[in-house]
């Protein structure tokens, strides 16, 4: 009735009539504006900060430095190593040094320019290999953030038994999220001194904890509300403006808005990790993979953020969606004086997909096997074992996804300068080998509606709509019976972050559980025997209001610290993309003409929303492969950092495979990141088909492609 239907988004109407009020649109009586003063140094000591001129500016309320922070001056999802305001030491270009609070934005920005900061420059380490070899430590513990390994079988022995071994090194560059809405948030104290922050975010409960540490206030004294959020893609998982707005509101006792310009967003926001990936892959004569060795070196920038997660995910997914009996992966992350790299759609897997998919094509070429065929031969299927030793017993629709694109692959016709390429992926849904729960609850409201208390953040991907569909299906009630109470740490439970493609699967299952409890309550109360919901609700609110909880934590195990063996995810999404490109031989400009995208999503709760994710993923994959490269101190705004426009978009044919996941709500898994992951890889294989040139470095923009063409 609701699941499998392309229902309209619950928030589409307000957004098309111009009533989508985002955090930066909020206004409050007496609202001040905060601007962050940032270091324009890669690596330095702060010699002195002179705020006198800024403070003397008319309209300036206060200037803050790290000394004004009442609690802990450090945040981060795993390691609390990133200062809100630098305490004497600068580790990246753009690091916050001070904050100027003024009556309005114009004054705050002008006064921020009058801040005088003197530095003693130090030699910057702008490369992970330099950082690995250097005796200069960016952090006290050294420059190695982490090393993750996945070891299975005996790769050395398998190498001896291989018919062909391909070794290549691949690299990718930093990518910015470029969510259209820059970071913004408004914080204010209420009469009791409680601090509320309304911001553009992907996770309210995590930010509540961070702000509580920052202000040294108990968590219940902090309230975080998610404003409609103009895209996230991982970039609004870390604390962005919330800490600054909360600090300023706490110290000044008035509402304070912090809203970044695009330039500030690009300076401060985390980036996609550049990875350097050395791959050695062996195969037998019949095309079966025999072993894979990968050495992955990543640049996490100045602070840890999600670096450890990316290193681990890259290691666990290094084989791609294939059966490889012998695996040895070592994945290391180093600190450098580059921008902080964090979570970005795919957590390292778009990078590794570029490597393993190029390797698959190189093996196919060496063995004279069709590229689709070699993927079919090695495809993970029911009963297969992954590199971490996990046996996949259900919902493994990869082979079916390959079959979906097979007709198009077989009918492809190269003309002129066109070429065709394949890209495949698998992606573990949710966090890696750690508990990853979601909770939600339902209440009965006196006016006769069901209160749907949802802490999951809809950042544009459509979780509010999809989760509402799951609830309605479970309840068997009409659409208008449910009132969404969402995105507020006061009224909702922790549903985890909107990341790792996890909300439909994990929170969706929690919603399903809560819905089932409520359904049986309603049945007990006679909903099927003609009793109205309104009647049941008004009786229930008299009883003190029952609450119906939903909770789900996917069954996983922790990974062995040495071998990486274990069950990191309860379920995986699978995808295969086929891309047609055309490369102009004179200019080396590559145009993506057509994409066939097949995705095993378990169950498409809302097929149009799934397609929307795939289209958006294809666009981001085109940017990743062909144009996007964030260069510290040079990529300043959208005039020096390009993302795809409508002119860059190909026609996209989607194929939805629904190999249902038994632990998921109505069989659903996730699609947010999978949509992007295989796209870049398939473009690179298509460029090779079109030109005979294989690129090993992303983005493969026309400058790089021209250089490669000259060498041929």
């Amino acid at each position: 009735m609701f699941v499998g239907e392309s229902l309209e988004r619950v928030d589409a109407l307000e957004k098309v009539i111009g009533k989508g009020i985002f955090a930066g649109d909020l206004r409050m009586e007496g609202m001040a504006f905060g601007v962050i003063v940032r270091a324009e140094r890669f690596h330095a000591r702060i010699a002195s900060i002179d705020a006198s001129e800024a403070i003397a500016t008319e309209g300036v309320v206060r200037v803050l430095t790290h000394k004004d922070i009442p609690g802990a001056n450090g945040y981060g999802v795993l390691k609390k190593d990133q200062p809100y305001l630098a305490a004497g030491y600068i580790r990246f270009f753009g690091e916050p040094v001070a904050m100027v609070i003024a009556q309005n934005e114009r004054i705050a920005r002008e006064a921020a320019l009058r801040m005088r900061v003197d530095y003693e420059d130090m030699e910057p380490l702008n490369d992970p290999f330099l950082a690995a070899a250097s005796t200069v430590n960016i952090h006290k513990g050294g420059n190695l953030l982490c090393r993750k390994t996945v070891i299975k079988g005996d790769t050395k022995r398998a190498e001896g038994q291989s018919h062909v071994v391909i070794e290549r090194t691949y690299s990718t560059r930093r990518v910015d999220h470029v969510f259209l809405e820059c970071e913004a948030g408004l914080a204010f104290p209420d009469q009791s001194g409680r601090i509320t922050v309304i911001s553009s975010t992907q996770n309210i409960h995590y930010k509540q904890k961070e702000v509580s540490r920052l202000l040294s206030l108990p968590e219940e004294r902090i309230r975080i509300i998610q404003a409609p959020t103009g895209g996230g893609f991982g970039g609004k998982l870390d604390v962005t403006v919330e800490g600054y707005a909360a600090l300023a509101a706490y110290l000044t006792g008035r509402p304070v808005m912090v809203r970044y310009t695009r330039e500030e967003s690009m300076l401060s926001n985390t980036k996609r990790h550049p990875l350097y990936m050395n791959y050695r892959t062996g195969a037998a004569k019949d095309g079966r993979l025999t072993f894979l060795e990968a050495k992955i070196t990543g640049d996490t920038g100045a602070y840890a953020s999600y670096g450890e997660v990316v290193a681990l995910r890259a290691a666990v997914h290094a084989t791609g969606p294939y059966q490889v009996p012998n695996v040895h992966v070592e994945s290391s992350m180093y600190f450098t004086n580059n921008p902080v790299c964090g979570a970005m759609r795919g957590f390292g897997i778009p990078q590794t997909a570029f490597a393993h998919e190029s390797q698959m094509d190189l093996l196919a070429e060496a063995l004279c096997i069709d590229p689709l065929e070699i993927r079919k031969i090695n495809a993970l299927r029911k009963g297969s074992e992954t590199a971490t030793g996990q046996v996949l017993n259900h919902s493994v629709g990869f082979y079916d996804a390959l079959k979906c694109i097979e007709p198009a692959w077989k009918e492809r016709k190269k003309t002129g300068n066109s070429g065709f390429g394949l890209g495949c992926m698998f992606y573990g849904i949710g966090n890696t080998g750690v508990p990853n729960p979601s909770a939600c609850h339902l209440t009965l409201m006196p006016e006769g509606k069901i209160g749907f208390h949802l802490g999951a953040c809809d950042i544009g991907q459509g979780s509010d709509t999809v989760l509402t569909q799951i609830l309605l299906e479970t309840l068997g009630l009409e659409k208008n019976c449910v009132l969404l109470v969402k995105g507020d740490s006061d009224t909702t439970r922790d549903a985890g972050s909107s990341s790792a493609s996890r909300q439909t699967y994990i929170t969706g299952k929690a919603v399903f559980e809560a819905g089932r409890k409520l359904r049986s309550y309603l049945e007990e109360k006679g909903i099927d025997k003609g009793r109205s919901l309104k009647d049941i609700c008004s009786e229930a609110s008299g009883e003190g209001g029952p609450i119906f909880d939903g909770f789900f934590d996917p069954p996983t195990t922790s990974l062995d610290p040495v071998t990486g063996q274990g069950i990191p995810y309860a379920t995986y999404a699978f995808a295969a993309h086929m891309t047609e490109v055309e490369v102009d031989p004179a200019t080396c400009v590559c145009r993506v003409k057509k994409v066939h995208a097949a995705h095993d999503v378990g169950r498409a709760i809302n097929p149009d929303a799934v397609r929307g994710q795939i289209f958006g993923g294809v666009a981001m994959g085109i940017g990743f492969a062909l144009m996007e490269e964030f260069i510290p101190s040079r990529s300043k705004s959208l005039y020096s950092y390009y993302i795809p426009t409508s002119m860059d978009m190909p026609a996209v044919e989607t194929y939805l495979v629904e190999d249902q996941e038994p632990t998921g709500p109505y069989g659903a898994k996730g699609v947010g990141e999978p949509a992007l992951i295989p796209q870049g890889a398939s473009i690179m294989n298509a460029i090779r088909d079109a030109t005979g040139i294989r690129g090993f470095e992303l983005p493969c923009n026309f400058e790089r492609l021209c250089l490669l063409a000259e060498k041929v």
Partner: protein
Amino acid sequence: MQKICFQLNGEKAEAEIEDYLTLLEVLRDRFSILSVKEGCGIGECGACTVLLNERPVYACLTLAVKADGCDVKTTEYLSKDGTLHPLQEAFVKSGAVQCGYCTPGMLMSAYALLQEEKTPTEEMIREGISGNLCRCTGYIQIMEAVKDASQI
């Protein structure tokens, strides 16, 4: 300071403004037209697109004094009479909205296109919205929505 008079979504509007203010700032701060979004402030993203005498302009690059004597339309205009414009309806139906931040600017570019050409080709639609960035949708469902609206 300068006084400007203009038509804002079909109604007379007046303001005393500093001559360095952009149309984006004046629409948002003086007239509370919050559908006009800032995405970059330098005329690259199109989130602030409004119509100035029926032609799409980036409000962040347009000085507000330029609007004096002109007709200015924003997304609010499209459903002014209380019913959705076919474009808005098509955006809702086609899944053209994800995060929604680019939506108002996108609608204005599409509206300007349809004012000029009642049945645009796919290529015209593609070009018509090419000055508006969207990071969520890959533009496909937006282009479908514009096409659907053009056939009504």
